[in-house]
């Protein structure tokens, strides 16, 4: 029987198949953070259960950590309490803990791959929907709820019905100024935020083959925004090159054995999908969102579409545009911007800061813009310095902050004030996502950089 990449990885992790029920699904790697894990540990304790395999779980502080003065005590008592709870739980159960200040600290989906926790053919879960990021390595990775965190802690398994399979193929060269983020936003704009609900997506075609691992992570990261459980890309030489020698990847004979297995991880030629979609790379331009969900995106040179052409009903559409303070058929170019955020598990990796630097180099930050440059991890932060990008940023009037989720979900102090506009490289533009009343325009690091130096929405191709 021929099977897809997804089938191969999924089927090899089914411990038991329940008739008319979910699969008992084995989890190789479990990532936890301070926000969604405390209650899971409360559950464990109240039932008197233990952690079955502490070495398969990794605890990282990221969601509500401050991005300045991380060496000082955290001021917000609630955040401090969550961070302390994570640390205490990790210590009590013998789980590795990469807290604030730890050299491996950063956003959970950035540090997983960096340290070799993420491997092809593995199953990875975390109580965070953007766990789909790890699919870039040919892993099955998806977000879970807190009850499931508790399940994984105590049994290393969760109960999951096998999702349906979708393949999205894109071929052809990408145009100038088009980044992996634009590819992701383009796909979501075509599928809407519910278009892949119930599916697990495989990305195929030379657009993805030609992407760096960082770019693949950005695309897989956004899978969840079209409703998919997750997305994945078949591992290839680039994947193996990336993971080789990282702290937690197999070594020596184990590596050779793993490689033999990893090389089988691709979709067989005659395997079938429940749904196949094909897009053309030439149709994609730098993207920007104008509304309050990630599906409300468009090419930056286009006008805001009219209500009739948008899924979700006119009332939702009107509510969304009213919130944003925009009108149908307007151009986004030239719209005033107050904040720029580059960071998050979508675009907080070194490649994203290189892209940002390519535009701000030799220019100056616009006076009306507050910019937050937040690396995805200490390792990214170190690279930014090593490659001389920090000098470029500082010369242009930018400040580099310390790693964390930051304004992606604004649980720390990095909140966009009510009514203000932010061009953000993160993944969600929901009402209030970046602070109560904040207005978010999702875009690539290039579009963010163009806005940061001009103070308005600007086509980055004009500055490249």
């Amino acid at each position, binding site marked *: 029987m021929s099977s897809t990449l997804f089938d191969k990885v999924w089927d090899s992790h089914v411990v038991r198949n329940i008739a008319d029920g979910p699969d008992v699904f084995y989890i190789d790697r479990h990532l936890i953070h301070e926000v969604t894990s405390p209650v899971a540990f409360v559950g464990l304790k109240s039932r008197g259960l233990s952690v079955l395999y502490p070495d398969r779980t990794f605890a990282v502080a990221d969601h509500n950590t401050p991005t300045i003065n991380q060496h000082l005590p955290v001021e917000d008592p609630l955040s401090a309490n969550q961070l302390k709870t994570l640390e205490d739980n990790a210590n009590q159960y013998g789980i590795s803990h990469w807290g604030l200040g730890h050299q491996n600290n950063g956003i959970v989906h950035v540090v997983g791959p960096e340290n070799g926790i993420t491997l092809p053919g593995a199953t990875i879960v975390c109580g965070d929907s953007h766990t789909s990021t790890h699919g870039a390595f040919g892993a099955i990775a998806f977000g879970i709820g807190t*009850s499931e965190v508790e399940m994984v802690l105590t049994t290393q398994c969760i109960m999951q019905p096998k999702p349906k399979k979708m393949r999205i193929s894109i071929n052809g060269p990408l145009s100038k100024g088009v980044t992996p983020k634009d590819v992701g936003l383009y796909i979501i704009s075509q599928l809407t935020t519910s278009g892949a609900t119930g599916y697990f997506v495989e990305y195929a075609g030379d657009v993805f083959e030609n992407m760096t691992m960082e770019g693949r992570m950005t695309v897989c990261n956004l899978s*969840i925004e079209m409703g998919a459980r997750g997305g994945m890309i078949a591992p290839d030489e680039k994947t193996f090159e990336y993971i080789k020698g990282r702290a937690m990847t197999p070594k020596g004979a184990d590596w050779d054995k793993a490689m033999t297995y990893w090389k089988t991880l691709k979709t067989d030629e005659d395997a079938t999908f429940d749904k196949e979609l094909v897009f053309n790379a030439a149709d994609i331009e730098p993207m920007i969102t104008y509304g309050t969900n990630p599906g409300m995106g468009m090419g930056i040179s286009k006008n805001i579409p009219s209500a009739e052409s948008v899924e979700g009903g006119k009332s939702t559409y009107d509510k969304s545009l009213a919130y944003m303070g925009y009108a149908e058929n307007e151009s986004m170019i030239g719209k005033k911007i107050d904040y720029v955020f580059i960071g998050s598990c979508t675009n907080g990796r070194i490649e994203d800061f290189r892209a940002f630097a390519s535009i701000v180099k030799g220019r100056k930050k616009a006076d009306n813009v507050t910019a937050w440059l937040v690396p995805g991890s200490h390792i990214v932060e170190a690279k930014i310095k090593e490659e001389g990008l920090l000098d470029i940023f500082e010369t242009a009037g930018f400040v580099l902050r310390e790693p964390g989720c930051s304004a992606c979900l604004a649980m720390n102090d990095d909140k966009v004030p009510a009514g203000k506009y932010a061009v953000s490289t993160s993944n969600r533009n929901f009402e209030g996502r970046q602070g109560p009343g904040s207005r978010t325009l999702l875009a690539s690091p290039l579009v963010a950089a163009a806005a940061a130096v001009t103070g308005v929405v600007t086509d980055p191709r004009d500055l490249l």
Partner: protein
Amino acid sequence: MAACCPLNTGKLNIKKMAYDKFTTLTSSVVPLPIENVDTDQIIPARFLKATTRDGFGDNLFRDWRYNGDNTPKEDFILNNPIYTGKILLGGKNFGSGSSREHAAWAVYDYGFRCVVSSFFADIFKNNCLNIGVLPVQISPEFSNEIFEAVYADPKTEVEIDLKAQTITLLSSGTKESFDINGYKKDNMLNGFDDIDYLQNMKSEIEAFTESRPF
């Protein structure tokens, strides 16, 4: 029902009931005619800082329910005393966005035991089933009919029978059946959860772990 009732064999070592059993529910309905309600609206991120599971109901739909100064927004449906009940009727694509289970807790803690919509986001639906809130997906036509009936008479009741997998609008008698997988259904009927099930197959899991390459 299919033969998937290991929870009824009596072999399990159940330490406590995960949540109240769900068999039938007859209740008036709170209508929320908004599509694509995302979990950031159901429970805004700033309320995720708790380390226990209590009190989330107070912040359900916080920013739609209250002004910045904590006074209730009068035009929001949850602040309208004529609409009460244990059933929340939402618009299409309910529960999209962030995977936070807190959204399901908030719905439960507020007092809803059932959410009805013509379409649910996956993770939210799963989270609900895990904590004892029944998500009932119905046709868009039926959804419209219930919205209209509730607007015409806020006391209108809907009956949900989990065993029979039916939902009935009592005023008109319109009835639809809904899907739920047999395993989750048994759990809800018995007030059990997945951990109870998994705990009982530890040795199988340990053997599987031995076979993993990494």
